[in-house]
């Protein structure tokens, strides 16, 4: 019965099944996927002769449904690192074939047996210069409603980021963040709860900051990068920027596994990574990529701000995702 259910789901989903000489790449849509198409898919098609069909947005529920139904139409999927760790444990992913994908130059923070880094981003503190008196210096200022009155915006979902920010603001040293002290984090968040506006997606976060609806907030650095490019009057602090990675995975039972592995090799190559970083403002996970990029682009990337940079612990999150989510939504709904 479970199979029938999953089969129906997958049947409804299976709109982009690839033929021989083709494969399907799935990502989050928008400017990120455009950059991935230009930097990875198009050159890969030119060199390997494999047509890359695009699908999206990434949906973990769909991925699971496909694997459960043994009808997998996605070959490479861009997912968040903590999901990849949990999915690998649940048997939803193919192991990476390191005979095809060279791993020597890959930043070990962002790749593992079942996932190759796609790019990495930082959560940074961004603000609307017209709406904030002075310059917030770091996360502690986001909790200081006297010095910085007004609404502040945080990521709405139970995901790595906000808990860590609350703990850092409360004075927890960066190297003592994990295991996360949830009681302490929620107590700190309580102090500004009525001043929080939540954003659920990147476009919403940009809208809130650009309009001044929220004076400042926790944003993905690529979204700030895009705001700056559009000429919005925003400031940014890289102090204690929090890194996390998107990774590329191959769902268990993918029909074009060989092509998928070759695609991963191309995407994680220095050139593929350099091109994507240039287009998106997110950082490359190949340590050789920087040499291929213009200096002024490198300056704006998260890996130009490694001083005080903090890596969100995706292994911890993968393991405690459910229990944190339960607390998170209970606190939010209160």
């Amino acid at each position, binding site marked *: *019965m*479970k199979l*029938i*259910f999953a089969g*129906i789901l997958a049947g409804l989903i299976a709109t982009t099944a690839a033929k021989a000489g083709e494969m399907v790449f799935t990502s989050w849509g928008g400017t990120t996927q455009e950059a991935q198409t230009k930097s990875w898919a198009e050159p890969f098609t030119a060199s390997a002769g494999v047509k890359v069909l695009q699908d999206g947005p990434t*949906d*973990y*529920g769909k991925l*699971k449904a496909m694997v459960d139904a043994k009808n997998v139409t996605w070959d490479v999927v861009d997912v968040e690192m903590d999901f990849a760790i*949990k999915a690998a444990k*649940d048997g939803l992913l193919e192991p990476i074939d390191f005979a095809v994908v060279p791993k020597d130059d890959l930043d070990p923070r962002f790749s593992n047996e079942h996932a190759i880094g796609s790019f990495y981003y930082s959560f940074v503190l961004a603000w609307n210069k017209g709406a904030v008196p002075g310059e917030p210096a770091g996360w502690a200022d986001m909790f200081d409603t006297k010095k910085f009155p007004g*609404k502040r915006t945080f990521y*709405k*979902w*139970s995901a790595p980021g906000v808990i860590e920010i609350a703990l850092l603001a409360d004075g927890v040293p960066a190297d003592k963040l994990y295991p996360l002290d949830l009681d302490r984090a929620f107590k700190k968040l309580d102090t500004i709860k009525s001043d929080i*506006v*939540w954003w*659920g997606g990147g476009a*919403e976060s940009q*809208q809130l900051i650009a*309009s*001044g*609806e929220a004076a400042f907030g926790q944003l993905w650095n690529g979204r700030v990068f895009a705001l700056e490019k559009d000429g919005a009057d925003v400031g940014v602090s890289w102090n204690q920027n929090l890194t996390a990675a998107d990774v590329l995975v191959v769902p268990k039972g993918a029909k074009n596994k060989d092509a998928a592995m070759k695609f991963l090799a191309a995407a994680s190559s220095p050139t593929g990574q350099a091109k994507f970083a240039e287009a998106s403002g997110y950082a490359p996970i190949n340590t050789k990529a920087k040499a291929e990029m213009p200096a002024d682009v490198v300056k704006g990337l998260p890996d130009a701000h490694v001083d005080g940079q903090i890596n969100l612990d995706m292994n911890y999150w993968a393991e405690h*995702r*459910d229990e944190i*989510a*339960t607390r998170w*939504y*209970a606190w*939010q*709904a*209160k």
Partner: protein
Amino acid sequence: MRLPAGVGGLLPALTLIGLFFVVPVLALLLRSVTDPAPGLQNYAALLGDGTYARVFFNTFLVAFVVTIVTVLVAFPVAWMLAIMPPALASILFGIIILSMWTNLLTRTYAWMVLLQRTGVINRALIATGITDQPLPLINNLTGVTIGMVYIMLPFMILPLVGTLRAIDPMTLRAAALCGASPLAAFRRILLPLSLPGIAAGGLMVFVMSLGYFVTPALLGGTSNMMLAEMIAQMIQSLLNWGLGSAAAFILLVVTMALYALQLRLVGSKRAAGGA
């Protein structure tokens, strides 16, 4: 086995209904009691947890408030449409239908821009001196209600106009001739006669509101999160399909119970939209 007369011709339709409605609902039920392990633990978790109880309560509260406000706003509009010349009415109908065809996300974002603290409405209110502080119109029940009422209005207006048009205008004239004030005529004649339309539209709006996703997610705050958003989280992000299925199934059962209750109260013909 011989089928009763007339059933044979219905087989294709019944098969389709079975495949697209009955099988998925059964699968949902089954998943809710088998995933991750057989048993009722998903239901126990949902019913025993204050957070989920609150989300259930929010869902019905929002649906209820939206339905009431929609009826109040839709009634005068429907009455106007019912009594105005048909040519003019069909133009207005066109406008109402057109708004339904505009992308939902676009319309919701438009409301965000209108309602937020730095939005058009608040700036106008402050500029005219009506208020000196921006009113909290978004990220709360007010925002969800405004956005959802706007989206639900056509579903209320359409059945209501049908009912109102069927009312013989002579009955109102007769009431006036007998000395009834306009209010009395409304209360004792128009309102009772239009109840079937209100019931049909109200039920549709209420049931649709229960499962609403986009608008509450963007215009509401976390303290009035609705069930659809919670289920999406359970299914997509936490991959806890058992719990998500159980939540969806509870919502379905309660909705059907409400429908049954209304059938009993209003009569089956009326609730189904017949006058």
